[in-house]
């Protein structure tokens, strides 16, 4: 059986990037042979202008669809790519983002309403996580934003949020 085709099948079925070492182990071929086959396979996909490409990512090789087809694929995953957030969730999220680490009681202090359900939703959506406990009566959980939060909102880090200190200074002038 042709090595190129075995690799193609492996790349197809793999659930993540496939390491060269794994391919070598499975096919029992040399690194040179495997590299040569991947290179040929990659070129073949490029030449026939396939909507699928072979890319090197995270230390391995992987199939992916070309960027041009994203609009169609996005439609297919419409449910998954739509993050559903209520306005109360958005408000709570903003408070956590700016005041992290923050306890539930502190968020409720700002919003004036119970936030336990909203916080739970935000944690489930992987936007907010617990990040330790506050050294105070009852040692309540402290909440902060996740990396996912930064990705969703297109931020490099929480430092990119408009500075809170600046706002506070303005407040003190009153």
């Amino acid at each position, binding site marked *: 059986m042709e090595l190129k085709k075995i690799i193609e099948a492996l790349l197809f079925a793999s659930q993540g990037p496939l390491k060269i070492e794994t391919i070598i182990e499975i096919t029992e071929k040399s690194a040179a042979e495997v590299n040569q086959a991947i290179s040929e396979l990659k070129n073949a996909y490029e030449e026939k202008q396939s909507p699928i490409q072979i890319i090197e990512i995270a230390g391995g090789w992987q199939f992916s669809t070309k960027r041009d087809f994203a609009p169609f694929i996005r439609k297919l995953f419409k449910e998954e790519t739509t993050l559903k957030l209520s306005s109360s969730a958005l408000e709570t999220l903003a408070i956590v983002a700016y005041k992290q680490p923050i306890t539930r009681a502190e968020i409720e202090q*700002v919003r004036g309403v119970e936030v336990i359900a909203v916080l739970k939703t935000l944690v489930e959506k992987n936007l907010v996580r617990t990040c330790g406990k506050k050294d105070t009566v009852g040692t309540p959980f402290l909440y902060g934003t996740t990396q996912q939060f930064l990705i969703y909102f297109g931020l490099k880090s929480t430092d990119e949020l408009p500075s*809170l200190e600046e706002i506070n200074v303005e407040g003190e002038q*009153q």
Partner: protein
Amino acid sequence: MEYGIKLEIFEGPMDLLLHLIQKSDLDIYDIPISKITSEYLAYLNLMKEMNLEVAGDFLIMAATLMRIKSKMLLPQHEDEDEEEFEDPRAEITKRLLEYKKFKEASKVLKINLEKQKDVFFRKTQPEFTVEDFGIDVSLFDLMDAFRKVLEKAKKSSKEIIKEEFTIEDKIRIILSLLEGKKFVSFYSIFLKDESRYSVIITFLALLELIKISQIYVRQNEAFSEIRIYRKIS
């Protein structure tokens, strides 16, 4: 003993009965009920001897078989029409045939399953980036939510007697936040509002600024932050 090995594979009384019939190559349409009943009971005894729990289902079938057997022993009335005569075995034969059908069908399914296990599908979801995401909350939704908060606040406004900020104050704060900047985040203008009332005042200030065309609020792309821009006249 032969039974010993087969003991556990029976899926129930129907399976056992079918096995006993097929083992002796008996006609399912003309079951020698006496022979089958004694074999069935012998099997149940064996199960007991081996200290295996005999499920109730097996006992019910034993009772059924014995009932059929006794009915078979009753003399047939001579004047009875052949067609009207109902074979006491008819019911169990029907059930056995039905069961056998599905037992065969399950074998066919098993073959399908074996064939399919060599076929692999893709399990990986495409990786989405920020621009692939949309949000189900529009700015309008957000404002609407605030309006509701406002209504609620009106009802409980008696509690709040003293408030240090007025709408004018808040307008000034928002504009000062915008000073030297292209925009500020929608959320950032509420950050130092410690009470609901204060949030409402800020929001009213925001609406006022929009009304008098001092600022505009927009979301640049799906799921980016909502930003407040100063209008340059």
